[in-house]
């Protein structure tokens, strides 16, 4: 049965969602991994690790050792600290990209679904367009041509991902538009915007949220991919940048394995969480 809730029951829904989470081992695992990375990201400035930018001629491409648990890169910089600091960049980038995608997608999707007609047609066309074009290729084009500063990249990545969120939002809005409680609120004099944002969306938003979680992982993978092509931001220590350097030299496996594992774990966490949320919040058929 669909949970028919008004905005005040959102918190109940969250509590219900959280309770089931304990039984969902996958989601729990994802949450744990994610939390550890978040903790690392937040605490790193306060923990004394090597300066991630300090170059050293003696340690060029040093394999892992006590001094450098994850080894050193081609400038002699400590990979361990770069991976830890990279958590901030990669997570930040992923979240920013996913948020952009969420905002743009939800707004466009819901407007399209709500107003219908010509606006809807146009928006649907754009949605289809962005689903057809292979995202990463478009991004390679954009990054190669327009520059690679990391926060711009996050935005651009988000701007290519919004289509799936928009589709979901649109479908949800269309479904909820006809619901009793919405019509009731309309009769009571609620304007379009109020209806959309206070009544429809709080109920329909959850599939979009779980999709967005998956997109954080996607964005991180995309950033790593762009760095692989040399299109990343060299001024920041993101995981993709470290891997890029590792791809240059086949003998330095630690430059590829450790940040690669970091990426894989983070993306895994978001995938597990996203899927678990989706399972939790999908309406059951019996």
């Amino acid at each position: 049965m669909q949970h028919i809730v008004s905005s005040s029951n959102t918190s109940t829904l969250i509590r219900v969602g959280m309770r089931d989470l304990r039984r969902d081992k996958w989601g729990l695992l994802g949450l744990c991994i994610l939390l550890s990375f978040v903790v690392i990201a937040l605490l790193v400035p306060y923990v004394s690790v090597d300066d991630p930018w300090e170059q050293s001629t003696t340690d060029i491409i040093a394999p892992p050792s006590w001094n450098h648990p994850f080894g050193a890169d081609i400038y002699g910089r400590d990979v361990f600290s770069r991976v830890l600091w990279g958590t901030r960049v990669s997570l930040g980038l992923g979240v920013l990209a996913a948020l952009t995608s969420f905002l743009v997608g939800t707004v466009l999707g819901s407007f399209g679904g709500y107003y219908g007609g010509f606006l809807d047609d146009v928006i649907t066309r754009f949605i289809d367009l962005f689903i057809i074009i292979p995202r990463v290729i478009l991004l390679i084009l954009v990054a190669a041509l327009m520059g690679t500063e990391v926060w711009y990249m996050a935005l651009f990545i988000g701007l290519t991902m919004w289509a799936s969120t928009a589709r979901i939002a649109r479908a949800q809005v269309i479904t909820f538009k006809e619901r009793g409680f919405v019509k009731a609120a309309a009769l009571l004099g609620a304007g379009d915007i109020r209806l959309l944002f206070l009544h429809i969306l709080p109920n329909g938003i959850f599939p979009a949220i779980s999709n967005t979680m998956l997109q954080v992982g996607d964005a991180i993978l995309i950033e790593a991919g762009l760095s692989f092509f040399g299109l990343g931001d060299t001024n920041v220590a993101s995981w993709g940048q470290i891997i890029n350097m590792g791809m240059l030299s086949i003998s330095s496996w630690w430059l590829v394995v450790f940040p690669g594992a970091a990426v894989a774990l983070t993306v895994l966490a978001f995938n597990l969480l996203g899927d678990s949320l989706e399972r939790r919040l999908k309406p059951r058929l019996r």
Partner: protein
Amino acid sequence: MPTYVTRRLIQSVPSVILVILLTFVIINLVPGDPSATLAGEFATPEYVAEIRKLYGFDRPVHERLLIYIGNMLTGNLGRSFFYKVPATQVVIERIPATILLVFPSIVLSMVVGLPLGIFAARKYPSRTTAAILFQAYVLFSIPIFVFGLLLMMVFAVYFRILPSSGMIGQFYATGLERAVDVLRHLVLPMLTLALISGVPPFVRLTYSAITEVSKEDFITTARAIGLDEDAVFRRHAFRNAMLPVVTIAGIWMSSAITGAVFTETVFSWPGIGSLLFDSILLRDYTVIMFIFVLTAISVIVVSLITDIIYERLDPRIRLR
């Protein structure tokens, strides 16, 4: 049915046009053009200007766009600035290599992914299911180029049982020898593409599709009637579970091309993926445009085909 197909094709035309517009605008929005690269290392500014004029880079964007569309309608998609032959020729020469990589990968992904997904669904709930699903999640999370490089390091460099890159190593071989040579070079890139881009989605989707369907009423009925588990499974669940799988094959086209770009670059596989990357950096506009258009069309065609198969498999679906 033919009218449905034609109707869908006509509906796709605006999408293709939008793709062209978007790509064209992006490419041309940015300052700079390939005239400097085309003109060469010792080119004087006069010569660069000459080149610019020759290729029409000095005209405003909208004019160039109109010229391009006009040419396109007459079938002329321009010449590659760098190869000096028609862009279509440059791209089409490299397509077989990509097909050689992508299609066996898809097939391999299905051949591996579907049975694994089904197996996982049947064994639910158990450790086996968990293991299979977890492995699918993990594979999906690894960046594809990292995985490719790892495979290269392990099998080519360390164990020396497979070639490390390229499509051909026996340069002067013909016939069967050449075929075997190409197949040997195909193994690692195909495994990379299949295991990271193809297998995980198939496993997860098949699994969830079947577990969903298993909860349906008609399955319970069939069991209640006394039908044997296997028969129930084969005749009903399986068929219905194929539907979303078919859909995924359509969507996968897009991510397959992305995966191909990475895989081809890592393994120096001479397909359109590596061509695309190369052209972007050189700003070989005509080649870039043609590849984008081709990609868009193939995604549309594949999704059209999957929709048709979808309809065939499940007559309950009424398509608009």
